[in-house]
């Protein structure tokens, strides 16, 4: 193919590394990214006139962040870079994008999706009170704007991000009231043998926990969150069950919550990619080969949008997917380089499976969400209503339950209520989680203004 049209979605670590290799091969890919500046969520950049250093912003990851930013900036004028642009649909070898009030169709010969991930959330009584944020949002406010979600913050959930965000808040001068982890110490120890695949990360994690403790932050493991206290104007506290089974309350004005991440796989779904169920993370993820080729001939997937491996893993995945793409277009490839990247990839996969073991998604807690708790924030549907759609109206899987109950039909399109609704539907049917399926992706991936106008295609 003389001048292949390549579209990359996402300018985080995976998208940046992929674009870098394509540019090096003499190609000029289109790079679509929702943010005003490249870097993705993890290496999100503040507005240009902000003065905090990489060290202040990214801590131990400052070097990585600087490298990703510098790489992107170096090739930015050699790609067709579309910042603040949403890829809202994929069909018939075209990506549909929106920027402000215009939309455009971008045809492609090859598509590389690196859209990243969002927080995986568990509905909790009171989780819609103003003052409740996802961990990702709590981190973004800090990184992009130098703001905290509150003065007295409780972080609740599980996974490395839980501790990292708490640590970043402490470093920024807002020591959290507490870190409440649903996973137990025993579970965390079970993950160790796999996590040693990346000893440097393991050490970093241990240092963060000990720094939190030294900073006076309470770190409690094996908790069961019960309720965010407050009213419809503010958060006043957090009620939970500790590992010993005692109910406790903590005063706070904000709550950050999250249970690892959820791959943003909607575009892959719209592109027609096959999915498979991954029991370790209890998520449906697109099928890929060891290079990142999807089940669709010209669609490649990389980064947390296909496997949650974190930023470093995403860089490797982005490179591998770009090499696969180039190879399929007839470019020669460096087999030694591929082998070393794949070896690195296996280390990331092994570490990630350790993380999943150490900080498991507490699915029994999800399945037991009280009937009165709102499970779908957009449509204001309770867990009880969802269960009724399963039991009274016979919903074997989540799309049927969605049709009857509206869970997953609102603005978020199931991006935030989906994982919990799968657990609730499966439990209500007394069936394994796989049987509940996953909420089908439907365009637009995010809400699209009706007043938009179309730009003519670039052909």
């Amino acid at each position, binding site marked *: 193919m003389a001048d292949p049209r390549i579209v990359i979605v996402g300018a985080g670590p995976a998208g940046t590394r992929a674009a870098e290799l394509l540019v090096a091969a003499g190609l000029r890919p289109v790079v679509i990214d929702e943010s005003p500046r490249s870097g993705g969520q993890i290496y999100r950049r503040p507005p240009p006139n902000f003065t905090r250093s990489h060290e202040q912003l990214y801590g131990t990851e400052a070097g990585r962040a600087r490298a990703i930013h510098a790489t992107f900036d170096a090739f930015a004028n050699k790609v067709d870079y579309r910042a603040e642009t949403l890829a809202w649909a994929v069909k018939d070898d075209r990506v549909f994008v929106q920027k402000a009030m215009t939309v455009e169709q971008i045809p492609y010969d090859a598509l590389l999706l690196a859209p990243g991930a969002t927080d995986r959330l568990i509905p909790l009584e009171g989780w819609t009170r103003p003052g409740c944020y996802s961990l990702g949002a709590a981190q973004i406010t800090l990184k992009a704007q130098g703001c905290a979600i509150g003065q007295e913050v409780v972080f609740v959930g599980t996974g490395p991000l839980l501790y990292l965000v708490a640590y970043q808040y402490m470093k920024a001068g807002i020591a959290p009231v507490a870190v409440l982890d649903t996973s137990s110490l025993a579970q965390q120890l079970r993950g160790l043998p796999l996590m040693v695949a990346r000893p440097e990360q393991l050490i970093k994690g241990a240092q963060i926990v000990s720094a939190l403790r030294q900073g006076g932050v309470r770190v409690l493991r094996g908790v069961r969150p019960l309720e965010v206290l407050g009213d419809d104007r503010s958060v006043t506290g957090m009620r939970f069950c500790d590992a010993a089974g005692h109910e406790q309350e903590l005063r706070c004005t904000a709550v950050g919550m999250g249970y690892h991440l959820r791959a943003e796989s909607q575009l892959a779904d719209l592109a027609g990619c096959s999915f498979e169920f991954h029991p370790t993370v209890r998520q449906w993820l697109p099928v890929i080969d060891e290079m990142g080729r999807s089940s669709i001939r010209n669609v490649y997937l990389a980064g947390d949008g296909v496997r949650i491996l974190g930023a470093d893993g995403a860089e490797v995945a982005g490179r591998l997917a770009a090499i696969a793409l180039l190879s399929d277009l007839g470019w020669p490839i460096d087999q030694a380089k591929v082998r070393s990247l794949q070896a690195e990839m296996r280390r990331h996969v092994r570490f990630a499976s350790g993380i999943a073991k150490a900080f498991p998604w507490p699915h029994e807690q999800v399945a037991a969400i009280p009937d009165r708790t709102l499970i779908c924030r957009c449509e204001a549907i309770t867990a009880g209503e969802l269960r009724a759609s399963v039991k009274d109206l016979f919903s074997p899987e989540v799309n049927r339950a969605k049709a009857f109950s509206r869970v997953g039909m609102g603005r978020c*399109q199931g991006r935030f209520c989906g994982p919990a609704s799968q657990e609730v539907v499966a439990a209500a049917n007394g069936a394994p989680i796989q049987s509940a399926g996953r909420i089908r992706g439907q365009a637009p991936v995010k809400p699209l203004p009706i007043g938009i106008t179309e730009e003519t295609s670039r052909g």
Partner: protein
Amino acid sequence: MVEASGQADVIIVGGGIVGASTAFFLRGRGVKVILLERFLIGQQASGTNFGNVRRQGRYLRQLPLANRSRDIWGRIHELTGSNVEFMPVGHIRFLWKEEQLAVVEKYQRDAAEYGLELHILGKEAIRERFPFIGPEAVAGSWSPHDGHANPRLVAPAFAQAAMRNGATIIENCEVLSIEKSGEDFTVETPRGNYRAPVVVISSGAWGADHAAAMGEAVPLVVDGPQMGVTEPLPYFVHPVVGVSTQVPGEVAYLRQIPRGNIIFGGVRRRPAALDERRAKYDPAGLMEQLRQIQRLAPALRHARVIRTWSGVEGYLADDIPVMGDSDKIAGLFYAFGFCGHGFQIGPGVGDVMAELIATGTTTTPIDDFHIRRFKDPARWQRTAAH
């Protein structure tokens, strides 16, 4: 849903709104029914359509059936135990051109003979009654007793009510073959064989394949409607809104539900495939749809679309369904291919089919829809071209 014993008075193939309501009304007449559904009840055209409970604009000779159905809609809560979100809020068709007035006025006169009440409203009247309407509209045709309902709920409501009354409904059960030997049909499925002296083909877009297998080919095209929904907005569009026009690209429609979302569709259909479980929405058509719905309600330009979808619909060459008994095989009945307008008449079709099967005749005329009209290919090819 429950597993069946293999024998019944009637086997219904296809559990959309037509099959489910046929099962319901047959049970009301004491007939033993087994319904076999390939996927889930009401999942295809019946569950993905716009939700229009509209008589105005229909093929005139279908109005007796539509009226019978409208009567059922009015009692649907009492009949099925679910309100299916039916709202008889009226249906308004706006006109963009003065020349179209003659068309709606003629339809008004003709429809009056079938008892359908319509009011033609002028430029001022439409603005007074429907302040959301855009500046281009010159008149409207108002049908006060039409309305809308939630399509996702209707077929399941009939199916569940039928089950409570003793019908056997089997989902995820694809019919592989239908054969008549002696008095009984044998319906073969991966879950076993079912036998009955009567079979109803109510398999929507799949109906043509079933009919062809029985030796009665019909010209059916499979298409998908293009549907979308906005985020919730203040409740300001109370009636169902459509357009009366000669330009196919202007045929847009919208309705708002009290919780605030506006559901829209129209402008064009896209081909759908029977082998796919799901018809796909084509985003390339969205811009034109949005342009047309803004002509109807310009205030929508500030709202956002949150979701789009499609479904699998069967369209006959002459744009009316196949309904009635087989021309060839005693005990075989058809009710399929409702050409994108089966939702309103669906419950009526079920009632009529039950009457026809149980009594051998029906008080509502359906002869126009009989499959024999496709007996002579030369004739229907001409109709299609026309």
